[in-house]
């Protein structure tokens, strides 16, 4: 790897401009800027230091220094970003969690954060969670995280924010190879090649990752995480058609094969079920950028993404099919975006598009389609010699099954001098009921409960009753007619300040989100004939989340830097608070059986949220010797897991998972001009929690051998 690359200042913190960064993130705009460029916050290029909404930037350099091949491991090292398990997945008692993990931001579940790849939203969420393992890290240029309601630009799902994973853009000829080996017989190999021939840029990427998985509970048959093989590939071509027209075509694939092997109960006797899950994702993206006038450009985009998942298990002895599921979701998304800049004065962005989604899954009632038409507009003004930035924008979404939804956002940033920046933003977010809320038809064969979507509930209950699968005497008349679900909607604000000098950067933020019409699972008042419950979805709740976030970084000297972050979070259910203040909520001590009223003080909040979370990082980097070491400590404070005292809320320490630390260390050394060797250990303390955090594998070691050859582009 060329030393020039190593000169890039590492962006451990997100806040303000790195001091030495010289990378040309985009070769056609803002050349020579010393400030990294981000695109997610405003849907157009901005200097990171100028964004008015809270934005975290994770650079390729930082990703490389962690040595991690998993996007979720990288994300969780940032303040206010927590990797959480699907509660449905943890209910499987140490069995492999098919739902995976997602990202919790601002105290909201993973379903409320839009996951974009090169600006386009991926589909194929299972129980609201998009498996981040679908995205390989090897060709990521940068990850941008925007916190706070972003529906004004991105529509549904962007209620808590947006994570935009941007892949590399060809700038010059570069070949990178990586061989990765880690504990649990994990092997990874990556080849990445970029080049630019005259007016054609090309990026090719191929990655294979396999692992034997791990077993945290030897007493239980099967592994906690089963073995898998993943393949990822991408081909991106950028063609300069003329001086004012550029075409981008990007093709991506992800294929995964995961073994399934666990014990089940078959005809009241234990039996072994074996099979595998295959996942496949294909996406195609085209963008035509047309610079109509020096400061006006139009983008024509089409995005297609298809995700399929097929899973089965057979009984080991008889080869009888015990369970089989298939899931096929696709989206076609045409969009036109206009961008008009008045230099030093304003930037205007507007767009119109459509989202055509299709789902066909064994767990859903038939093939279903949804179409959304949307328009968005945003203007950004620069005032007072660019010290003041004002942003106002809004988006309209019309989906086939609900009325037009309006999501406005306003933001302001004030930079009185080069050190300080003050920001304030407020926005309305929404999340449309998704396919699962409407059409899910899921029977858990291992445990025996049912989860039915709102729109298919009536028909499915009638069918269950006819088959004698409902408890005798169940009255289903009230469920025959579908009451349509409403979109969940939120209002959120963030106020922040940041300070930065050559040695110190620091930022503070305060945020609050109020969400209403929250769609949640509820149990029907009758059971299946096996006695286990039937769940469905309805607009139940209103909750709020609020908190404080702080980040600081100190550049000790040329080699050492130190950083830390902390988030304080409260996430509470307003109905629970009302019940408590009305004296209607009781608790019964599971030991003494004393029943008492719940007080507001003892109500901890929504399950799965930590009040305290923190991270600390040490980086040592010596450009002369080509050595670096990067130590990260991540703390997640105690969080509610399950009720034990008879009120279904988290209000007792016995209902919580204790806080834990994850310590990770990676170190790399340049061996020659092209070779770099990296070793690392993750989860140094060997923390595991098989029931509640089955995604944490315990202490693992890895080694990476990187080969990188780069030529400077001649044009």
């Amino acid at each position, binding site marked *: 790897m060329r030393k020039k690359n190593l000169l890039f200042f590492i962006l451990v913190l997100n806040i303000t401009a790195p001091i030495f960064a010289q990378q040309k993130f985009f070769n056609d705009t803002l050349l020579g800027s010393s400030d990294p460029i981000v695109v997610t916050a405003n849907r157009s290029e901005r200097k990171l230091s100028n964004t008015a909404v809270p934005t975290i930037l994770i650079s390729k350099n930082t990703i490389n220094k962690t040595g991690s091949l998993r996007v979720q491991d990288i994300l969780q090292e940032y303040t206010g970003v927590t990797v959480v398990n699907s509660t*449905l997945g*943890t*209910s499987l*008692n140490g069995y492999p969690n098919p739902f995976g993990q997602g990202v919790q931001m601002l105290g909201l579940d993973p379903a409320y954060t839009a996951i974009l790849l090169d600006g386009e939203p991926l589909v194929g969420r299972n129980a609201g969670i998009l498996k981040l393992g679908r995205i390989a890290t090897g060709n990521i240029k940068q990850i941008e995280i925007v916190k706070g309601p972003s529906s004004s630009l991105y529509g549904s799902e962007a209620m808590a924010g947006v994570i935009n994973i941007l892949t590399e853009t060809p700038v010059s000829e570069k070949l990178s190879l990586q061989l990765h080996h880690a504990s649990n017989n994990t092997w990874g190999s990556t080849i990445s090649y970029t080049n630019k021939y005259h007016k054609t840029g090309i990026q090719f990427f191929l990655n294979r990752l396999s692992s034997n998985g791990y077993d945290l509970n030897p007493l239980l048959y099967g592994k906690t995480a089963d073995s898998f093989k993943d393949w990822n590939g991408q081909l991106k071509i950028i063609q300069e058609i003329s001086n004012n027209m550029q075409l981008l075509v990007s093709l991506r694939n992800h294929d995964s094969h995961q073994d399934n092997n666990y014990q089940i*109960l078959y005809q*009241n*006797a*234990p039996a072994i079920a074996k099979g595998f899950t295959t996942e496949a994702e294909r996406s195609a993206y085209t963008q035509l950028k047309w610079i109509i006038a020096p400061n006006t450009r139009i983008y024509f985009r089409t995005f297609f993404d298809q995700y399929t998942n097929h899973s089965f298990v057979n009984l080991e002895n008889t080869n009888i099919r015990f369970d089989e599921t298939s899931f096929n979701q696709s989206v076609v998304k045409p969009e036109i975006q206009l961008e008009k800049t008045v230099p030093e004065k304003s930037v205007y962005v507007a767009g119109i598009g459509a989202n055509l989604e299709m789902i066909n899954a064994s767990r859903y009632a038939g093939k279903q389609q949804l179409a959304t038409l949307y328009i968005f507009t945003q203007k950004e003004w620069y005032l007072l010699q660019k010290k003041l930035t004002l942003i106002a924008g809004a988006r309209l979404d019309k989906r086939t099954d609900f009325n037009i939804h309006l999501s406005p956002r306003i933001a302001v940033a004030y930079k009185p001098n080069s050190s300080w920046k003050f920001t304030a933003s407020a926005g309305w977010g929404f999340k449309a009921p998704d396919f699962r809320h409407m059409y899910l038809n899921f029977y858990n064969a291992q*445990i025996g*409960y049912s989860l039915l979507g709102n729109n298919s509930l009536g028909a499915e209950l009638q069918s269950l009753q006819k088959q004698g699968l409902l*408890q*005798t*005497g*169940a*009255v289903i008349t009230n469920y025959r007619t579908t009451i349509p679900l409403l979109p969940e909607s939120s209002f959120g604000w963030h106020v922040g300040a940041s300070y930065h000098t050559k040695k110190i950067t620091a930022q503070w933020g305060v945020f609050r989100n109020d969400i209403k019409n929250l769609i949640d699972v509820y*149990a*029907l*008042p*009758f*059971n299946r*004939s*096996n*006695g*286990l*419950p039937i769940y469905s979805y309805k607009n139940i709740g209103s909750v709020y989340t609020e908190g404080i976030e702080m980040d600081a970084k100190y550049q000790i000297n040329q080699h050492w830097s130190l950083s830390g972050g902390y988030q304080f979070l409260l996430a509470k259910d307003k109905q629970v608070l009302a019940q408590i203040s009305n004296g*209607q*909520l*009781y*608790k*019964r001590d*599971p030991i003494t*059986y004393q*029943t*008492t*009223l719940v007080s507001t003080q003892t109500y901890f909040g929504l399950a799965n949220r930590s009040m305290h979370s923190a991270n600390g990082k040490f980086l040592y980097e010596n450009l002369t010797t080509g050595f670096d070491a990067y130590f990260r400590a991540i703390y997640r404070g105690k969080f509610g*897991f*399950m*009720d*034990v*005292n*008879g*009120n*279904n809320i988290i209000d007792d320490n016995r209902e919580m998972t204790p806080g834990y630390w994850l310590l990770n260390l990676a170190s790399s050394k340049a061996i020659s001009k092209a070779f770099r060797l990296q070793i690392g250990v993750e989860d140094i303390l060997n923390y595991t929690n098989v*029931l509640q955090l089955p995604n944490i594998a315990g202490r693992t070691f890895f080694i990476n051998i990187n080969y990188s050859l780069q030529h400077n582009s001649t044009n």
Partner: protein
Amino acid sequence: MKIQLTIFVAAGLFFSACNKTDVAPVVVPIVTSTQSLTVNFSSTKSFIFFSFKDSAVVANTDSATTKWDIGLRYTTFILNGNASGPGNAGVSMQDGIFSSLNTAPATGYAVDTSRSNLAIKDGSWYDYNTTTHAFIPKAGKVFFFRTADGAHYVKMQLLSVDYLPFVGQVPLSLVYKFQYSYQPNGTKNF
């Protein structure tokens, strides 16, 4: 004779409450008991019948009598009356703290109107935990029963519902632990 005794006791209570003299504490003849009842974890096996007055399980052969007040299996409660038995049992579920709710409601007792419409709705008294599969009784739910004879009142709260330790994969029994007071004098006061 019994009625006179009750009046005497009630009067004694009244006076003891008003007179702060050294009157010996009057023994209230209320049956107060904490019971553990082992119940079939099956929606097809037989109900376990219970009599509040006798604090005892009633044999299944007496299912057609008014000897029992409630029947339990799985998470289903039946009351001896209407669709479920020859008696006149009913229930009124109240929210509050057991020790502070001292009067049974005058009216509003639900009965098992049909096999499919039981007085105590399944799921009305517990939260099911998908992780542990536990049926956790909701705290602060107090059951006021009218007994099978239609003339006496009981207040009851569930303390815990646990699986009986079992070998193999399927639990066979649930143990209901509950606390109750039976007022033998026929009043609604506890």
